[in-house]
């Protein structure tokens, strides 16, 4: 199935397919809302993750803190942000990591008005860029 939003570059719209794929990954992240769970996860990440029947790739992405890979495997950023919070990251630090930019460069880009829309509307603009 294709959707009208598939052409947007650098973006994972959290639709049915992604929600189904990422269910247990996201529910793991959700569990980190509870302070005691954050402690348990930090104490032993691998055995904490055993509680959630996610795929091996998803598990690997969590352990490696590969934020974009998590999104590619069905993660949603409001969920993965709870893992970032557990690591002590701010939302801006998380965003910078996903863009591949240094935090300072990302912050400067935002201070200059953010990533411009021109050139960022469709995948064709990115593949030419």
């Amino acid at each position, binding site marked *: 199935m294709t959707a009208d939003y598939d052409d947007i*570059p650098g973006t994972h719209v959290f639709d049915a397919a992604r929600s189904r794929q990422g269910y247990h990954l*996201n529910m793991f992240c959700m569990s980190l*809302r509870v302070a005691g769970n954050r402690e348990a996860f930090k104490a032993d990440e691998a055995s904490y993750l055993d509680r959630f029947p996610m795929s091996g790739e998803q598990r690997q992405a969590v352990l490696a803190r590969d934020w974009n890979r998590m999104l590619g495997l069905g993660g949603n950023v409001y969920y993965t*942000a709870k893992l970032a919070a557990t690591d002590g990251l701010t939302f801006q630090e998380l965003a910078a990591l996903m*863009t591949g930019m240094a935090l300072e460069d990302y912050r400067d880009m*935002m201070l200059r008005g953010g990533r411009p829309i021109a050139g960022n509307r469709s995948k064709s603009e990115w593949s030419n860029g």
Partner: protein
Amino acid sequence: MAEIVGGYATSHVPAIGVAMDQGKTAEPYWQPLFAGYEASRKWMAELKPDVAIVVFNDHANAFSLEIIPTFALGCAAEYRPADEGWGARPVPLVKGHPDLAWHIAQSVILDEFDLTIVNEMEVDHGLTVPLSLAFGQPEAWPCPVIPLAVNVVQYPPPTGNRCFQLGRAIRRAVDSFEPGLRVAIFGTGGMSHQLQAERAGLINADFDRRFLDLLVNEPEAAAAIPHVEYLREAGSEGIELVMWLVMRGAMNARVREVHRHYHVPASNTAVGHLVLEND
């Protein structure tokens, strides 16, 4: 009849709440943002609404993927601020208004909106940051709150038109409530921002300014914007703007723009703010 006495729209960026909680509002990064909320805080203090309906979205705190209501109306007596992973915000407990909330619930369901009624709910920054912006940092919030949580995390959110029509149904409900109650309605979220993946940091000031103009003067045109246009032009999280349409639907067809503020950035987000009165 009860009366809608004002419409208040604002972004609800979590970093704004952190800046207020940590006393950083006068810092150079934050000062221009907060300067734009001074006039409207005074306006709100003079308005003194009896109750505020706050249209917001939950960000994976009260609701998870287990249950995803399109529209969830809080009918409870109180709501605790949520721990979103960084610890709960140090803000007052949010008191509800069960009388009006249940009246609205009954009215809009019979009006053929398929509401979910909620009696247990924690409220996250989507609701508490707008309260902080509107009311400052009091010991207790000055009025009770009716939370209306809109799903904008799981695609598809409700259409802009559906949000606008729900606002109109809420207006009919408020109009039919017992006399004397003065109600403010908040639309929150947006403006343009993308928090995820390689395109994070997207801002589109042209889109945002056009949206502000349309919302005030041509709300039906704003309500007709399709989801893909929000996603592409305003960023994947910019689709939160559909929630402003609920507020607008509850106001008169013609409104006065009392105040406007637009500032980039707050963390990853373009901040927009509107205060409306019925004409």
